[in-house]
């Protein structure tokens, strides 16, 4: 008997891999067809065909449009003018006020992102009364 066989015979049964509570919901190994089917199931059925038709129409129109004669037919483009752009943004009669407002907006988004990310909500949702109320409010009709 080789040492390997002895150790395998006396070793306890291999521990089952830890599975999270979401293991069934999010399987990690899916074949290509299963992934495609899952993605199709995740698509809203109400709009599926209508939007697919719209998408095909838009693609078709966009493919045909350049062939038609019009003002955009082979319109030439110009190099960007960086000094001119800075003049547009930073001159008092330009966009300097929206530029400053945008900086405040970005700062607000930064603070909001940090505040939302550091909130302690949902750490123990089962113990929270508001969690129960929210579950009742979101339950399908007849189950609440």
């Amino acid at each position, binding site marked *: 008997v080789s040492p390997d066989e002895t150790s395998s015979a006396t070793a306890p049964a291999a521990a089952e891999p830890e599975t999270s509570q979401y293991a069934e919901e999010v399987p990690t190994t899916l074949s290509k067809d299963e992934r495609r089917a899952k993605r199709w199931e995740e698509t809203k059925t109400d*709009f599926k065909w209508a939007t697919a038709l719209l*998408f095909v129409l838009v693609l078709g129109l*966009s493919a045909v449009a350049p062939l038609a004669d019009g003002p955009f037919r082979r319109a*030439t483009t110009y190099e960007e003018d960086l000094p001119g752009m800075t*003049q547009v943004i930073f001159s008092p009669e330009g*966009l300097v006020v929206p530029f400053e407002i945008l900086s405040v*907006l970005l700062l607000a*988004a930064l603070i909001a992102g940090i505040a939302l*990310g550091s909130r302690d909500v949902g750490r123990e949702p089962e113990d929270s009364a508001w969690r129960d109320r929210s579950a009742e*409010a979101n339950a399908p009709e007849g189950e609440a």
Partner: protein
Amino acid sequence: MASFPEIGADWYFVLSVVLFGIGLYGILTQKSGIRILMCVELLLNAANINFVAFGSMYAQDQGFAYALFIIAIAAAEAAVGLAIFVNLFRVRHTIELDQIQTLRW
């Protein structure tokens, strides 16, 4: 060195329309919040391409300036949106927007 043919402004509009169509299709059909957020970004990028293409076509610098503004707004929107979805997943364990029927947590 081979010279590439110049790409006319019309093809930029085609690219913009295609991007807009993909984004619209995603917004209307998808349930996942992250996917919808990505599709909103596609819509904003389609608008961006239009701004730059028209600005370049008419040699107007406002188009480039507006594109910079849209990029900044898209960044702010993505930051807040992702933070909201992170919180949503903590609370509801899902980010499928069909299952989120109330704004109160």
